[in-house]
């Protein structure tokens, strides 16, 4: 291992000059959100707003349904695990607010048949489905959001206490 600070690469030095924190190999551009893709034009150009049939709409609806399904399982949790799943409830609410801002807060799905058990299984399924949908949507920005949501579920799963089944 080197004991002396290594030379700074040209690209990394540019990061310092611009005040960009260093993960050195990444260009400044590397750390920016992706530029708008053709499918993102609707948000940038008001003349293209509200297309009659955005192919991503159906996939967003699927994402909402999947989050609602997992949320219903969490809401049905009882006993000592109820407190432990509160962060998941908040996470689902945050994600639903982003995916469906016009959705009524009280419009959650009923708990799935079979009872309240299986929070871990429900969240694992949600993570998988969000990742799948991220791979299918046309919009790059939406893909990043869905993939990030999947990663968030994964983080919460990793810190779930053992009393949560």
């Amino acid at each position, binding site marked *: *291992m*080197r*004991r002396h*600070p*290594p*030379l*700074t*690469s040209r*690209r*990394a*030095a540019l*990061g*310092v000059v611009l005040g960009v*924190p*260093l*993960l*050195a*190999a*990444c*260009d400044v*551009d*590397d*750390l*920016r*959100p*992706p*530029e708008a*893709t053709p499918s993102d034009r609707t948000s940038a150009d008001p003349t293209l707003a509200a297309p009659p049939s955005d192919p991503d709409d159906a996939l967003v609806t699927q994402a909402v349904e999947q989050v609602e399904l997992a949320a219903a399982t969490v809401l049905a949790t009882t006993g000592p695990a109820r407190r432990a799943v509160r*962060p998941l409830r908040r*996470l689902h609410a*945050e*994600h639903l607010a*982003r995916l469906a801002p016009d959705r009524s807060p009280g419009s959650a799905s009923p708990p799935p048949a079979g009872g309240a058990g299986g929070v871990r299984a429900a969240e694992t399924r949600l*993570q998988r489905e969000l*990742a799948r949908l*991220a*791979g299918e949507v046309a919009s*790059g*920005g939406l*893909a*990043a*959001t869905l*993939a*990030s*949501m*999947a*990663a*968030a579920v*994964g*983080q*919460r799963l*990793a*810190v779930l206490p053992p009393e949560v089944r």
Partner: protein
Amino acid sequence: MSDLQTALAAEHAAVYLLGVLGGRTSESREPALFAAITAAHAEHRDRRDDLVAALAASGRTPVGTEPAYAVPEGIETPAGVRAAALDLERRCTATYAAVVGGTSADDRTRAIALLQASALAELRFGGTPAVLPGLEA
């Protein structure tokens, strides 16, 4: 544009920096931190190699390493090393989120997996779960 080359560039940097952080960490005095950095270093090395293979298999020339990388300040203490490692993982997560948005098909699938792995790696260095890992400031 963010694509798999961007992800590979980030992995080159991560492998280098985690090597430096490992060199600043005492295995005997900070065994948990040393183990975490060693594990992270191995994971990033594997990801780097996977990305190189994927890019080459698709006919693209993988980007190489920089001659050297700037090392963060404040890594003279275990707390500083841990903070630097967490910062590195967060930057990787943000990079992968951008790569997800800039890719499609198989490249996007790979970026999605990288994003999820990096978000988990943040927890190893004291990170806390986020609402939108990689997309939050």
